[in-house]
């Protein structure tokens, strides 16, 4: 998918625009120049095994014909940026997965790209290395102002560093928008499935009168449920609860079961709605 953005894979139909330029219509030579400004990192790192870390970073500069002096200085800067100045002379085979990905990131940034494409860049890494790589990417995004496009199946990655998300299902964009909005209120089946099945089994037993409620940054710090129980005297069965931190805001969702008695259930729902909390009745199964 991401290979379409820099035309490593030619789309069968449609066009690709980068900065307003239709790159599916330009010549091979012009395309190469465009590619200088679109960095890319891969799941399998794809470093040149016969070159040292330093020479790997130098590679795109050689390709672009940057003069040796400048290229050398740039390489040193980049090694510093990814935190591996001591590994300059190491060969990829001597580096760990996380270190390899750092070198790959440095290599992708060598020609000062405007866009950085990440193709499942953390899928081959363990959780703590994934975190440190994501932190580095976020830092690059903020410090250097580079647009980062991430392709991933790990929703936790999206949650951690993305501002916008598009969920693709069966080759079509099912839903897109700001991460916060989509996570708070996914509309399509696939989005719900992706977001709620993340990391756990999701609600197991779903009976009648089951509701999903979503907290935002304000309500998540308030003990709303406790207050609701006290005020409406309605007995609540909590089936599932999950809190997440998205872009610095607490965000949570809970699946609760209300009593069969429709009146008290309606009271509870009304109470929650009056406190600006999203409540929706859930079907038999969401997870």
């Amino acid at each position, binding site marked *: 998918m991401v*290979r379409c953005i820099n035309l*490593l894979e030619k789309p069968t139909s449609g066009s690709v625009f980068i900065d307003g330029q239709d790159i599916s219509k330009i010549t091979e030579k012009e395309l190469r120049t465009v590619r*200088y400004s*679109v960095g890319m990192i*891969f799941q399998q790192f*794809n*470093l040149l*095994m*016969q070159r040292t870390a330093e020479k790997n970073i130098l590679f795109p500069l050689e*390709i672009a014909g940057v003069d040796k002096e400048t290229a050398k200085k740039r390489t040193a800067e980049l090694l510093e940026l990814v935190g591996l100045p001591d590994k300059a002379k190491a060969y990829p085979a001597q580096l760990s997965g996380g270190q390899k990905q750092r070198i790959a990131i440095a290599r992708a940034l060598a020609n000062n790209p405007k866009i950085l494409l990440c193709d499942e860049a953390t899928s081959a890494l363990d959780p703590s290395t994934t975190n440190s790589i994501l932190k580095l990417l976020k830092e690059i995004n903020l410090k250097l102002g580079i647009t980062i496009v991430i392709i991933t199946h790990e929703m936790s990655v999206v949650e951690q560093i993305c501002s916008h998300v598009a969920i693709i299902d069966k080759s079509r964009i099912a839903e897109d928008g700001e991460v916060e909005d989509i996570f708070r209120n996914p509309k399509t089946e696939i989005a719900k499935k992706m977001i709620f099945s993340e990391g756990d089994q999701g609600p197991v037993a779903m009976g009648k009168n089951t509701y999903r409620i979503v907290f935002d940054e304000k309500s998540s710090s308030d003990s709303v449920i406790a207050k609701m129980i006290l005020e409406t005297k309605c007995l609540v069965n909590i089936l599932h609860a999950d809190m997440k931190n998205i872009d610095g805001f607490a965000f949570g969702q809970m699946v609760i079961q209300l009593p069969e008695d429709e009146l008290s259930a309606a009271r509870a729902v009304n109470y929650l709605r009056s406190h600006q909390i999203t409540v929706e009745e859930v079907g038999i199964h969401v997870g």
Partner: protein
Amino acid sequence: MWDSSMTALIVQGTFETLYMTLASTLLAYLIGLPMGVLLVTSDSEGIVPMKVLNQVLNIVVNITRSIPFLILLIAVIPLTRLITGTTIGSTATIVPLVIAAAPFIARLVESSIKEVDYGIIEASLSMGSSPMQVVTKVMIPEAKPSLIIGAAIATTTILGYSAMAGIVGGGGLGDIAIRFGYYRYETGMMVITVVLLVLIVQLFQEVGMKIAQKQDRRK
């Protein structure tokens, strides 16, 4: 029957063999290396697919590879005379050796380059490499250890072919072995030339492996 002239003959034969082998290998690589690279790049899955060129190359390589060397040796005599002006001696032998070895080398090069992970090639394309840059900066350097092992195999194979050229007066150790050992039943001479050939093959093979190992950064 053993005298200094015999020793001189063997020394000369050894040098002729080395000359034929190394010169042929070098020339065969000048043809075989680009052929091998083209076989990979022009493939339908390659970086510059060219169907017709790929098919032609494959047919040429397969035909040349299937002709027994001894037949090829005789078949190309007119061409040999055209190029070197003679059909006997070690320089003349280089012509059929190159013709026989180039397609073989092309296949060796092809398989070495195919070992390079396509992801690495894709990465270099994503950075804006031209096909030529992919070949010179990625494919060949990344396949270097395997190419060196291939070169050692090619050299020893050519050495074996060069000994066969003795049958048509090609010079070198093979020539001596045939003239003295086969036609005159001088077993001693035969043994000496065979031992020398074995030693030379061992030497090339060992040196090739050592260099390849030293160059391999994948472990």
